């Protein structure tokens, strides 16, 4: 039962984060906060580093400079048990679901429970069933990932990411490749989970309908300046942003050249 999102200190703090590959920075000196319970969306053109930023936030890559703090604990550079404790505070849904193909959906969701808790066997089954039911997959517990659709795989991935009831869920392109109905259902699921469980969502997406439906706040990354071009409420940015590129992005307008 989480506290009021806006009144709490930031659950994620990014300070002076510079990231890139091979000594060449892709994004420089990023600073932003994410409040508990917030649905925070990372936007930007193709190749601007959205997914790379997400991978830095979840600790898969080490930044060139700066730090990421999660729940008041510095995550960047932290090792050992302290790092494992922070890792348990969040779940990640990867772009392609990344489900384990040899396991049933139930076993995929059970895996974190088996590894990190001492719940009885039957209790783990029940928790996993509830998670699958929450994402609308009751009755598919014994299916293998290859036997269900892409949308269902993504929903299973969300269920697995939620297995330990983390404070934060990171979603990489949750709507990519889904039909509009499934995409809208996924948006409703995110809103429901945010409302009921108070989970903080950090989402990378391009889908404008999704952004306007779910986002409390967005940041838009810029390839040219290697920084944050705009930050705020998506509807405000669409209608009132000073940057023509931001307005074009939200209004799906082609560039003048094309």
């Amino acid at each position: 039962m989480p506290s009021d999102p806006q009144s709490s200190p930031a659950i994620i703090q990014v300070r002076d984060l510079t990231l890139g590959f091979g000594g060449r920075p892709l994004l420089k000196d990023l600073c932003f906060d994410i409040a508990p319970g917030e649905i925070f969306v990372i936007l930007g053109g193709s190749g601007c580093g959205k997914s790379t930023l997400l991978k830095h936030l979840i600790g898969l890559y080490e930044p060139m400079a700066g730090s990421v703090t999660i729940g008041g604990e510095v995550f960047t550079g932290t090792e050992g048990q302290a790092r494992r404790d922070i890792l348990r505070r969040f779940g990640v849904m990867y772009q392609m679901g990344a489900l384990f193909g040899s396991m049933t959906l139930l076993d995929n969701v059970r895996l974190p429970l088996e590894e990190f808790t001492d719940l009885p066997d039957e209790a783990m089954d029940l928790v996993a069933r509830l998670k699958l039911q929450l994402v609308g997959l009751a009755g598919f517990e014994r299916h293998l990932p290859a036997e269900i659709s892409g949308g269902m795989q993504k929903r299973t991935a969300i269920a697995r990411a939620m297995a330990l009831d983390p404070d934060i869920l990171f979603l990489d392109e949750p709507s990519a490749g889904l039909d509009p109905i499934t995409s809208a259902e996924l948006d409703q699921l995110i809103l429901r989970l945010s409302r009921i469980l108070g989970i903080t969502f950090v989402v990378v997406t391009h889908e404008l309908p999704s952004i306007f439906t779910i986002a409390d706040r967005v940041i838009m990354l810029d390839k040219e300046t290697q920084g944050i071009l705009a930050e705020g409420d998506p509807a405000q940015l669409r209608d009132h942003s000073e940057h023509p590129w931001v307005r074009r992005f939200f209004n799906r307008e082609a560039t003048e050249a094309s």
Partner: protein
Amino acid sequence: MINGLPRRFRVLMDKKTSVNQDSAQLDVASGPNGECMLVLSGRLDAYTVGPLWSHARDLLIRYSGQPVQVDLAAVAYCDGAGVALLLDLLRQPRDPAAPVALANVPPKVAQLLEPFDAQALAAPPPDRSPPGLRQRLGEGVHDLGRDLYNHVVFVGEATAALFHGLIHPSRVRWKDALRIAQEAGVNALPIVALIAFLMGVILAFQSAVAMKQFGAEIFVANLVALSLFRELGPLMTAILLAGRSASAFAAEIGTMKVNEELNALTTMGLDPVRFLVVTRVMAAVIVAPLLTIFADLVGLMGGALVMMTFDVPLVAFMNQVSQAVSPSDFLGGLFKAAVFGLVIAGVGCLRGLETRTGASAVGVSTTRAVVSAIILIVVLDGLFAVIFFHLGI
């Protein structure tokens, strides 16, 4: 306090599993009307409810004859695991006169419970019964027939594509073939050299020790050269090629299939067999004899080195080798190597094309490619031995 039951069951977080220092607690009390009350308090999450779970169930069994209330007034935090515990208590089969009910449910917990129906959860998830013996037998026969058909089709397509490539060499993707030849051939030189050298050393040493007793050390050169040129050179090279390249071909093509790259080729009007198989087969057919020549020479060097320690000069060794080995021995070995190369590449590509979906399918294809290739190499080697004998080679 009811019937001497433990008054309080408290779970303190242990450091191994904790992410915070809160605890969950289960107390037993009497309600205002004498009913049993299970009082849950503290933090109900995946790390704290485990030890409470079986105790709470035991209490329900003990009080199976009377109504039980689960009081949640003192629950400070509850997440999915806590909800699962509550639903598990509610779904237990009970006498209708002795139900389990929740009391003083905090609004947030009520919200969390809302999507779920405890009675629906009483039934286990629908099981997918494994197929029966008849079905499995039928599927096995069907799969066998389909595999045989696919193999015949593959051999036909690959043969046609190879002939087409020979008639129209400009249509062959030589750049790809050379890249594959480099990976399968040039990069295999160190391992081939090591194995061939050791083979020459071992052959020469083992036989020289025995033959020295008869003063026939010089004939070790005949033994080493004939063994290497006719049998061991092509055979060991082919087995190494199967381990390195058949697996690589199967994994590469299998991953392409999983990633739908083969579908992309087909829809672009490109034949995957011409595009992928012909280049690999041609590369392997060229590389296998070259690697065999290399293995033969390095193996001879190993043998010569050992013989020098038995006081057989290098000149005498080489002279004996040149007398013992005829061109047909050498060329027969190379012909075998070329056929082995054809089979290794063909089997590797076939197993790659047969890959089904999922990451484990690529592993299965790779294993099948290596095993099939080695079995075929050994069987073909036996056939060559019989054929060469009858041909007098």
